[in-house]
């Protein structure tokens, strides 16, 4: 990249603005975040919402409530006392949602066949076969060939919920791994975080992409616009991240994510080039073509394979995490394609300034 692209400082994010609740569970959680007297009622409100929902996976109210509860452990929420991260009531509420959430993910995700052995090579081969067989919806081809400017901006908004904290969920795995798997995870994460250069932190590069299309790069700026399905895939990563017992799933998730990123990233970049955008916009995607071609090898063999070789009992969780990435992370893509195919917005309401860009 040209030198001037590197000179900008990294983006300093602040705790996100409190989102708007989407139902009684979210109202109870948001109330408890600013009013200590409301904490005691959170678990009951969550239980009621869980009892009433037909599908916890796509429940707008519960997914937003869970997202807020996780955010206390990540970047925080503006105006919320920091010690609420370990509030017994709020953690109890989170666990109440997590249990049926995890069960529903496990029910929705088809488990792949086990490898012939738990050697790193066999685990890697199984993961490569699994991820190359993925015939999920091709959002990247839509972006490359068809997407309008409005759809391209919606795509960036949908992705912003994760990508402005890209790599953070998987960093929770570092103290929970040892040996070869730990070294592999740290090598990948170091690259995600710019290899010591603040301007190259992937989430900062993504912020530039957002700005180049006239979009807000503050963490959570578009939280009220994204549908439950987008929150579900981010919440699943947080579920795998903050629960040590799910470290195998976290590793499998990262492996599958890296293994399905390099080729689509080239197509995303092509889409923005087709729409007339330059390097400032496409750097993020171009960076991922090269980076993820490196990461996928390390992630499949040394991280996932190394973990299973060292802890064979984690094999099924690694496979589950990989399959969950393919299935659940495919849902927002399928949602965007379905809505755009019908000529509609993929957001809960269209972007307020649709159409205006800096390009």
């Amino acid at each position, binding site marked *: 990249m040209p030198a001037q692209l590197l000179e900008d400082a990294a983006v300093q994010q602040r705790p996100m603005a409190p989102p708007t609740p989407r139902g009684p569970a979210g109202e109870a959680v948001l109330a408890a975040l600013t009013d200590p007297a409301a904490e005691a009622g959170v678990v009951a409100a969550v239980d009621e919402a869980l009892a009433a929902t037909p599908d916890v996976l796509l429940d707008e109210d519960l997914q937003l409530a869970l997202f807020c509860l996780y955010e206390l452990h990540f970047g925080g929420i503006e105006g919320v006392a920091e010690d609420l991260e370990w509030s017994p009531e709020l953690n109890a509420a989170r666990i109440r949602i997590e249990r049926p959430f995890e069960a529903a993910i496990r029910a929705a995700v088809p488990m792949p066949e086990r490898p012939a052995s738990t050697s790193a*090579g066999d685990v890697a081969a199984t993961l490569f076969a699994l991820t190359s067989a993925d015939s999920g919806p091709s959002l990247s081809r839509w972006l490359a060939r068809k997407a309008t400017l409005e759809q391209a901006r919606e795509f960036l908004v949908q992705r912003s919920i994760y990508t402005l904290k890209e790599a953070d969920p998987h960093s929770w795995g570092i103290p929970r791994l040892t040996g070869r798997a730990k070294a592999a995870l740290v090598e990948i994460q*170091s*690259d995600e975080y710019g290899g010591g250069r603040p301007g190259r932190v992937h989430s900062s590069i993504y912020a530039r992409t957002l700005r180049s299309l006239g979009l807000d790069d503050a963490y959570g700026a578009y939280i009220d616009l994204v549908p439950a399905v987008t929150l579900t895939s981010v919440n699943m990563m947080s579920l795998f991240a903050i629960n040590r017992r799910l470290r195998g799933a976290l590793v499998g998730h990262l492996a599958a994510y890296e293994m399905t990123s390099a080729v689509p990233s080239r197509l995303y970049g092509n889409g923005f080039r087709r729409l007339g955008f330059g390097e400032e916009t496409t750097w993020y995607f171009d960076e991922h*073509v090269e980076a993820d*071609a490196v990461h996928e*090898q390390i992630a499949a*063999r040394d991280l996932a394979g190394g973990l299973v070789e060292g802890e064979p009992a984690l094999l099924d969780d690694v496979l589950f995490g990989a399959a969950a990435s393919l299935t659940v992370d495919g849902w927002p893509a399928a949602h965007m394609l379905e809505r755009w195919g019908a000529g509609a917005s993929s957001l809960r309401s269209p972007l307020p300034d649709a159409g205006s860009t800096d390009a």
Partner: protein
Amino acid sequence: MPEREEPVRIVAYPNGPLLVRGPVEIVGPDGAPLPRRRRTVALCRCGKSTIKPYCDGTHKVIGFVTEPEEPAED
């Protein structure tokens, strides 16, 4: 420490690229250094990358294999 300098290490990943770690210069035919944007780089081995000499994952799309198939038994 048994050695002060780690040697350059190239790992040949099955059906994939060569991962290069360590202090090695990657240069063009004129000797001018090629951009190296990360500590560990993957060099294309299938010949079809769009960002050669680096890997872009294309080997998976074209079904590139590094190991010769076992000869058929007869």
